[in-house]
C-alpha cells in the first residue's frame, strides 16, 4: 500500500518548550491511523503541522510524495480537516457555506457534490437552515460535509465525535468507515474516545510529552501491556513516568 502521509522526524519548539520532539510515522492509503495521548501531548500541534498552519522547527512532511514545505497549495487541495473547535460562519445557510467552500476548493460540479454529501450525511433538509441555529449533531454533520466537499484523499479528524450523543456519534463513525472503504482515503484520527479508536483504527500512535511512546494495532497494544481494553492501555501509558514498553 502507498503511503499518503509521511512524517519524518518533525520537531516543533515554542521558544524553549518542545511541543513535538522528533516524531516519524506514515499513514497508508485506505488506512485510519489513531493518534492518542493526554492533553498537551502534541496531537494538535502535529495536526497543525500537517495542515500547514504550523511550521515545523525541523523535519519533513510529505503528502502523496509532495513535500509540504514546497507544495502547500497542491497539498491543501487534497486534504481537509474537521474539529469541534472550529466552525462554519453562523449567519450563512448550510448550502451557502458548502457553496463557499466548494468554490475555495475549486470543486467542479458543486450542485452535484452538495447533493451527494447531503444525501450521504442526511442533511438535505438542513440546506436552507441557518448554520448557527443547528444542533451540535447537525453542525457536526454539516462540518463533515464541508470537510469532504473537495473529495479529500487525506482527512484529518480532531475529536470528530466529541460532544455528540451516542446515536449521532455512531452515525458519524459508520459513515467514516464506509466512506474510507469506498474512496480509499487516509485518515488521521485524534480522539479521546477509546472505543471509537478501537473500532475505526487499524493502528494507533500513543503520544506523550511530544513523543511517540508506543504504537501498533489496538489489539496488539492491549495484549502487550496486559490490559483488557485500549482505555486501560492509555491510562497506563499516560500515568507512567517514561516506563513506556
Amino acid at each position, binding site marked *: 500500500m502507498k503511503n499518503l502521509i509521511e512524517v519524518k522526524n518533525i520537531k516543533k519548539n515554542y521558544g524553549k518548550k518542545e511541543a513535538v520532539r522528533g516524531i516519524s510515522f506514515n499513514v497508508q492509503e485506505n488506512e485510519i491511523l489513531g493518534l492518542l495521548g493526554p492533553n498537551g501531548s502534541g496531537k494538535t500541534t502535529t495536526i497543525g503541522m500537517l495542515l500547514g498552519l504550523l511550521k515545523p522547527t525541523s523535519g519533513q512532511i510529505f503528502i502523496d510524495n509532495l513535500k509540504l514545505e514546497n507544495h502547500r497549495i*497542491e497539498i491543501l487541495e487534497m486534504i481537509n480537516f474537521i474539529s469541534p473547535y*472550529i466552525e462554519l460562519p453562523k449567519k450563512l445557510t448550510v448550502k451557502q457555506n458548502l457553496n463557499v467552500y466548494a468554490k*475555495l476548493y475549486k470543486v467542479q460540479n458543486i450542485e452535484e457534490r452538495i447533493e451527494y454529501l447531503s444525501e450521504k450525511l442526511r442533511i438535505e433538509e438542513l440546506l436552507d437552515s441557518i448554520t448557527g441555529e443547528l444542533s451540535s449533531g447537525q453542525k457536526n454533520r454539516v462540518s463533515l460535509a464541508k470537510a469532504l466537499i473537495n473529495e479529500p484523499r487525506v482527512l484529518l479528524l480532531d475529536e470528530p465525535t466529541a460532544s455528540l450523543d451516542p446515536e449521532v456519534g455512531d452515525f458519524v463513525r459508520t459513515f467514516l468507515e464506509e466512506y474510507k472503504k469506498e474512496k480509499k482515503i487516509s485518515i488521521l484520527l485524534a480522539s479521546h474516545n477509546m472505543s471509537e479508536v478501537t473500532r475505526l483504527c487499524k493502528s494507533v500512535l500513543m503520544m506523550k510529552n511530544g513523543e511517540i511512546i508506543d504504537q501498533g494495532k489496538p489489539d496488539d497494544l492491549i495484549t502487550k501491556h496486559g490490559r483488557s481494553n485500549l482505555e486501560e492501555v492509555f491510562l497506563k501509558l499516560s500515568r507512567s513516568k517514561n516506563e513506556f514498553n
Partner: protein
Amino acid sequence: MSLTRIYGLFLRHFYLITRSFPRVLDLVYWPTIQITLWGFISNFFATHTTYYNNAVGVILTCAILYDFLFRTSIGFNMLFLEEIWSRNFTNLFIAPMKIGEILTSLVITALIRSLIGLVPAVLLTSPLFGISILELGIFLFFLFLSLYIFGITLGILVSSGLLRFGPSFENIAWSTMFLLAPFGCIYYPIETLPEVFQKIAYILPLVYIFEEARNILINQTVDIENIYNAFIWNALYFTLSIILFYYSFNAAKNRGTLINMGE
C-alpha cells in the same frame, strides 16, 4: 452584596486588561486622540474664522472623504475579524488559497462595502445642505482612489497585527483611523499642526489628499503635485503592508497563532 464577589468579577476584567498590551493601549489612547484632534480643530477655527468662505461645504466634503477612508479600512478589518469571531479562521487558512487570493478577495469586498455606504452619503448632502462633493470634478476619482488605497493599506497592516498577535489586537483595529486623524489634517491645513507633527503628517498620503480637496474647493485650482505625492506615499505604504502581511503570516506559522485563532 458580597465584596468578595464584586472584587472577583473586577479581577476577571483586570486580569484580561493587564495581560494584553493592546488593551492597555486602547484605554490610554482614545482620550488622548480625541483631545488632540478636537484641540487642533478648535484652535484652527478660533484663529482662522474667515479662512473658509463656504465652511460647511468644505467640512462636509472632507467628512465624506474621511468617512470613505474610515469605512474602507474598518471594512477590511471587519472581514478579517468576522472569520475570527465565527471561529472560521482555521477553515479559511487550510483551504488551498494563496495569500494573494485572500488579500485580493478582501480588497474587492471592502471596496463594495465602502461604496454601499458612500453613495447614500453623497446623495444626502445635496438636498440637505445644498452641497455636492461632485464639485471636485474628475479629480474626485483620484482622491477617492488614493483614500481607498490608504484605507486598504491600513486594513492590511491591522490584519498583519491580528495574524501576529491574535484577537487581542482587535482593539487596535478599531482605533487606527483615530490615531492618524490628527496628522491627516482632515479639517484644517497642515500649518495648524506643531512643527514636529507636520513632519509626521508630510510622510502620510492623507495630508496631500485633504489639502488638495480644500485647494480645489476654496481656490478652484488643481495642484497635481499633491495628488502625485499622495500616490507615491501610498505605493510605499501599500508595498510595506503586503511585505508585513507575508512576514506576519510566516511568524504566525512559527508561533502557532493560526491554530489558536479558531479556538
